[in-house]
């Protein structure tokens, strides 16, 4: 090919091949939004109470846990504002659990990647966004519940977007990681739900910070990136007198442990998802 030919605007250009983000930013967002929205619609389309389930399910889970931890294991009664804290934590954790659990198989779902040059990252991100849409209505319920319970409005409520941003960042990183690992290691689908359960008990979802005695679960809590998010949510939204994350960790250095975990997750996620993006169509 001569140089003159190459300068023509309609000359063939090298194609990029399968990748995590390829195909243009606009197409990426459109695909992400449309697949998330359609998954959301499709999921509730057929059940009788359809969208009501987005609220009913976490409420029912809350009901069970509330009964268990106030009437069977009676520590809930000693924690101030326990019902509101528990409900808020469950809603936040449900988003994380649902998003990551659904993202595990997302890359291989429906064999899409074998038929279309869809940017691979759309698939786990779409699982996160669908979970986000499900959580929106649940979030509304939480705020109604908080106000009805009698928590006074505080200026720190304005910091709620910070909590959401941190939670979304963590969820996206883990969703990317587990979906990429699943491409070459199918065992992830068996292991991840168990790990989610571990994170549920090894974080501050059901008991407040500082409750766990030293031991394995306590160690998990200390490095778990979910712990500071939930701890700060409690301080900023419900009880300004509760201990914040830095206070609870003892020192600023110790408080950074979850951040280190988070950065490690991000690094592995980027490396593995790049690799997975190229091979996923062949590994189905």
């Amino acid at each position, binding site marked *: 090919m001569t140089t003159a030919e190459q300068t023509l605007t309609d000359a063939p250009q090298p194609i990029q091949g399968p990748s995590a983000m390829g195909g243009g930013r606009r197409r990426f967002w459109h695909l992400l939004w449309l697949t998330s929205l359609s998954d959301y*619609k*499709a999921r509730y389309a*057929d059940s009788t109470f359809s969208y009501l389930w987005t609220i009913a399910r976490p409420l029912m889970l809350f009901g069970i846990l509330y009964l268990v931890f106030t009437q069977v294991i009676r520590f809930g009664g000693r924690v101030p504002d326990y019902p509101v804290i528990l409900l808020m934590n469950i809603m936040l954790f449900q988003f994380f659990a649902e998003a990551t659990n659904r993202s595990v198989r997302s890359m291989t779902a429906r064999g899409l990647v074998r038929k*279309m040059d869809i940017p691979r990252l759309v698939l786990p991100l779409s699982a996160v966004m669908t979970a986000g849409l499900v959580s929106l209505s649940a979030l509304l319920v939480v705020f109604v519940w908080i106000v009805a319970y009698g928590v006074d409005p505080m200026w720190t409520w304005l910091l709620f977007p910070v909590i959401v941003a941190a939670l979304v960042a963590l969820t996206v990183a883990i969703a990317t990681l587990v979906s990429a690992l699943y491409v070459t290691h199918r065992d992830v689908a068996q292991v991840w739900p168990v790990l989610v359960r571990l994170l549920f008990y090894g974080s501050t979802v059901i008991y407040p910070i500082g409750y766990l005695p030293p031991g394995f679960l306590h160690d998990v809590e200390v490095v778990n990136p979910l712990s500071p998010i939930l701890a700060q949510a409690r301080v900023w939204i419900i009880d300004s007198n509760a201990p914040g994350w830095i206070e609870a960790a003892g020192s600023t250095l110790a408080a950074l442990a979850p951040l280190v975990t988070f950065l490690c997750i991000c690094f592995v996620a980027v490396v593995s998802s790049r690799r997975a993006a190229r091979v996923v169509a062949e590994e189905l």
Partner: protein
Amino acid sequence: MAVHPDAVQVRDLTKTFRVPIPTGDGVRGSLARRFAKSVRRELRALNGVSFDVRKGEFFGIAGRNGSGKSTLLKLIAGIHAADGGIIKVAGRVGPFLELGVGFNPELSARENVVLNGVMLGRTPEEMMQRLAAVMEFADLGAFAEAKLKHFSSGMRLRLGFSVMVQADPDVYLFDEVMSVGDAAYQQKASETFLDLKDRGKTVILVTHSMTAIEELCDRAMLLERGEIAAVGTTDDITARYLELNREQAERRPDGRVRGAEGDTEVPVSPRLRARVASASVRGRGEAGRVDPGEPISLEGVVVVERPIRGTRLWLELHDAQGTRVFAESAQLDESMRDLAPGQRLRVRAAVENRLVPGSYTLSWAIMHTAPTGRPVAVSAIDTRGFRVAGKRVPRGGPVSLKYEVDVESAADVPAPARR
């Protein structure tokens, strides 16, 4: 303004798959797969493939199963990553490897159209504007809000096809789209192909159908074992393809022949009694070529290896799609009824030729009469490809029949009542 002539350029394309060798299911098998490098076998799907497709060209890719043609299409579509070589494409590619990719049965047709269109590189707004056109083109005008799960598979196919056409990519990639769907869909597909051709669209078509290549394509390419066996005119490629199939058929031990697209349905005895030593099909001139109207002559030599009782000759003619045009089991003269081992036979047959130009195969075999009275082939079925020379008539059948037409003005005929 100058226009670059090429729509697609492919240079030295190489693709190797690492295929797991079966190590058994269960923990031991999968541990072996994971940790022992040797349990994966390298499978070279494409090896140094280079070709160009011009703008506005209909380019056919033929090849037998496993020749690498679908892999090639997936590389151009950006679905698989190449191991080596370069692919360049001018503009947007519309991969159509399966109809209605990513369709969600729980959503309405409208939502699926938008989603599918975005996958093909359009914006949601553009697809909403084209929705009516998509639904109309698919003959599904009234069903835009119906859920896809209530559609028949034919309706889904038409919808997928319609989205593809309305998304209007610069380069269309089709994989075997003619061999699926109901009659209404196939009708739609062929009309669309002709329309795309008229509009000067660039189309790459992977197919087993030599008719599709002959009727639609400007040029074609034949892949064999991941390499280009030939690039050229559609006539050359179809002839080479049928030839390749014949070579393969001869290697098959059971004698059952896979024609272009279908098995012959002659029962073949598991215990062969005769061997075809050589054969050719011709008109009056060179082998493999017959002029229209010229009798199709078969000449062959057969060696008898075991006694044969009630000998017959099987003749069978297929067109390029594998449709049987003619089949006959011919009784032989009295002296040839019973044959002894070691006997050599010269076989000659001449078949009347009313075939239209195109590619065909002539299959033949020696038969005996089984104790049940049924004729059964006792030699391997021998298949020879040949071409009837000339320009193929699009949409014609396989044979040309004599006909007369008489249309005249008839004012005295009363006009029938309008229904």
